[in-house]
């Protein structure tokens, strides 16, 4: 277990400890740590979620999280990044993802953390299924999502 928890980029079935993810990016040269915590929201477009199930292509998802880490270090060379995403059943207010980014100065920590969550939503093979009182649905099968005619997602600027 200890080995798994030490991975900077981790898919897990267990509850995520914010402190554990933050500890991975603590550094004497870091003055700022930004974390993004994604939690399960009860209402989405007026519809009440009972619980979510997350599934992942685990080995590839960890590789893609690591790729996001590399992309961040190219843009913000002094940044340290750790990301843990949980899969399995999650109830309302449970933590699905924790991103932690440390940088010497605060502005970069915000920008790099924001970059990470946008890229997760573009390239990391993780899916959620919403369970409502009257049904269930894999999210990602949404009309507003674009198809990928080239088979490959392009790197996009944050909107």
């Amino acid at each position, binding site marked *: 277990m200890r080995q798994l928890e030490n991975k900077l980029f981790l898919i897990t079935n267990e509850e995520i400890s914010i402190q554990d993810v933050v500890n991975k990016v603590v550094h004497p040269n870091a003055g700022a740590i930004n974390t993004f915590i*994604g939690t399960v929201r009860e209402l989405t477009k007026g519809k009440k979620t009972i619980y979510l199930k*997350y*599934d*992942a*292509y685990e*080995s*590839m*998802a960890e*590789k893609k999280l690591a790729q996001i880490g590399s992309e961040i270090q190219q843009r913000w060379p002094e940044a340290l990044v750790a990301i843990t*995403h949980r899969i399995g059943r999650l109830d309302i207010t449970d933590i*699905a*993802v924790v991103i932690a980014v440390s940088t010497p100065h605060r502005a970069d920590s915000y920008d790099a953390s924001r970059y990470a*969550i946008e890229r*997760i*939503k*573009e*390239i*990391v*093979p*993780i*899916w*959620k*299924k919403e369970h409502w009182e009257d049904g269930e649905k*894999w*999210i*990602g*099968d*949404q009309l507003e*999502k*674009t*198809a*990928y*005619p*080239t*088979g*490959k*997602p392009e790197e996009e600027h944050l909107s």
Partner: protein
Amino acid sequence: MIKLLFFAELEEIVGSRELTIEKGELTIVELKQFLKEQYPTLPVDRAMIAVNEEYVEDTNVIKANDVVALIPPVSGG
């Protein structure tokens, strides 16, 4: 022999996360054509394709023993 992986709604449509097909080299385009014939309801064109855990273009060629995953639009985070 090529190993195919299906996730999320694709897994539910195919009825299995993992399939093995007896093919040699073929392009992504050819694979997609094959899958559309086998599973007419499978939204193949809305999926990204990963070969050995890396996204690839439609023109890429799949080789024997590759692991090919159909990745529907992701919704993590």
